[in-house]
């Protein structure tokens, strides 16, 4: 298993939408390299014939009747918004300029 590099951390931070500072990148790269090496131990035991387990409960398709029930009002839902306009979340521009 290849070790995690500073560039890997920068790429993953971009995927995770966290703008890390140069210092943070340096520090995290060193720590994550160690951690990734250590968690890689899972490859020592997990054989091909072992089924993966994603959850403790064997649940599939838990459903409920599709009935109208009381829900939050628009005001309640927007109460924690950094910015709201006309009963909507107001967000910074989502398209490139021009």
């Amino acid at each position, binding site marked *: *298993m290849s070790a*995690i590099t500073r560039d*890997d*951390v920068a790429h*993953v*931070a*971009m*995927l*995770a*939408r*966290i*703008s*890390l*500072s140069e210092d*943070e990148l340096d520090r*995290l790269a060193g*720590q*994550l390299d*160690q*951690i*990734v090496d*250590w*968690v*890689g*131990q*899972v*490859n*020592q*035991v*997990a*054989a091909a014939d*072992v*089924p*993966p*387990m*994603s*959850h*403790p*409960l064997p*649940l599939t398709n*838990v459903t*409920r009747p599709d009935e109208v029930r009381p829900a*939050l009002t628009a005001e*309640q*839902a927007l*109460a*924690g*918004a*950094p*910015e709201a306009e006309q009963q909507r*979340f107001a*967000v*910074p*521009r*989502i*398209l*490139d*300029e021009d």
Partner: protein
Amino acid sequence: MTETTTPAAGEELTRLTAAAMADRLTAGELTSEQLVHAHLDRIERLNPVLNAYLRVDAEGALATAREVDAARAGGEQLPRLAGVPVAVKDIACTEGLVTTAGSRMLAAWVPPYDATVVRRLREARMPILGKTNMDEFAMGSSTEHSAFGPTRNPWDLDRIPGGSGGGSSAAVAAYLAPLAIGSDTGGSIRQPAAVTGTVGAKPTYGGVSRYGVIALASSLDQIGPCARTVTDAALLHEVIGGHDPMDSTSIDAPVPPVLEAAGTRDLTGLRVGIVSELTGEGYQPDVQARFDEAVAQLREAGAEVVEVSCPHFRYALPAYYLILPSEASSNLARYDAMRYGLRVHPEGVDRPSAEQVMAASRDAGFGDEVKRRIILGTYALSAGYYEAYYGQAQKVRTLIARDFEAAFEQVDVLISPTAPTTAFRIGDKAEDPMAMYRNDIATIPANLAGVPGLSVPAGIAGDGLPVGVQLLAPATSDERMYAVGAALEARLAAQWGGSGSVLDRAPDVSALVDAFATTASSADREVTA
């Protein structure tokens, strides 16, 4: 009856068990308002140093208390714990009361609804004293990763109270609340209980609704009770447990009879298994000694004790530190600075895009440990690595669940120390994330498999700090760990004398806090001079 109590009488009230508080309330010897006042007074005095509560809701707690007192005076039939105050970890949403999960990201966020667990406390008519401190988004074993400062252990103010639920454990241990709600993803209820001399239970996965609880790792998270006695934990467990249609992973079956089990004293015929992989090397010698004594007590109570092997438990930590960050990186994607929480504009950008605002906000809003785990999880899930890391970790999870199945064919309950050491010093592991992770070695297997676990005090180590032992039971058989925990607690209480609580031997926290405050202010004076 007067509504005011002398300070000394108030102190006495806070030392009662929740069960005794409930009995005195029912008997009319005490009002809920007196109880709430007694706790608020103590919180006001000790919390500035302990930092167990992030927010105190005096007004809300007193309003509930007065309603309960009026209802009782009017002859109304009330739930058993009506009027008994409770603290809630700041991970469970409280309508109208700021809920931060210990993060700058949610520093000012007021939830628009109650978590089911909070709703159940309200239905049980329990005054909610406030919200307790925690590691940011429950990532940590020390509460040092809270954005709002660490919580101090009431046994020694330079030590950690465990984590992530160190606020709840410290509040209960320092008599700032008789009961508290915790959440346990890898040990965050059990390990804090162990290092503060209190009791903490992680129910079977799905045993308590997660609806309205801020998610860390959805397949591991479980809500549970923090208390000073096994019976008190069982009382709170029965209030919060049971099916909730709002949580699709909630078990649709009655709550296991944990309160009845907490009355158990005789363990004749019960088979207890010591997990070989969770003792010996790596465990502080006097933690091991208290554990061995607890096992001897169980034998004397009639239990048959054998050693069992769970060979894959040694891979539990690496598997957990892939599964948890993977799920967390996905769950924490919701903090996008668009709909709620912190929004920060990047410096030096004239008209930033939503994506730039998102990235700047997540950098400013998340602390180091949260960033570390999000990056690790994103890496483990990314193209080319998924099979080697997350996929393999899920297979290890199967092997650990199989180890539990095999063990529970031989024994009824498993036992181990809850944590490998007593409380470490604040700052000791701050620069070494892996040393911090290793602290959860004994508690993590239960979360991976979804089985219940209970930590009960087992005595005090040579360093004067408390030690806990952990009991593990098969899924949906939570009552078994309560039965063994209660029998052990009763035998140790008889041996220790006094009230029977290990907390009797804790130093006087008021004196510690006064001394701490004096030192801190003289240090300030030196700095100013």
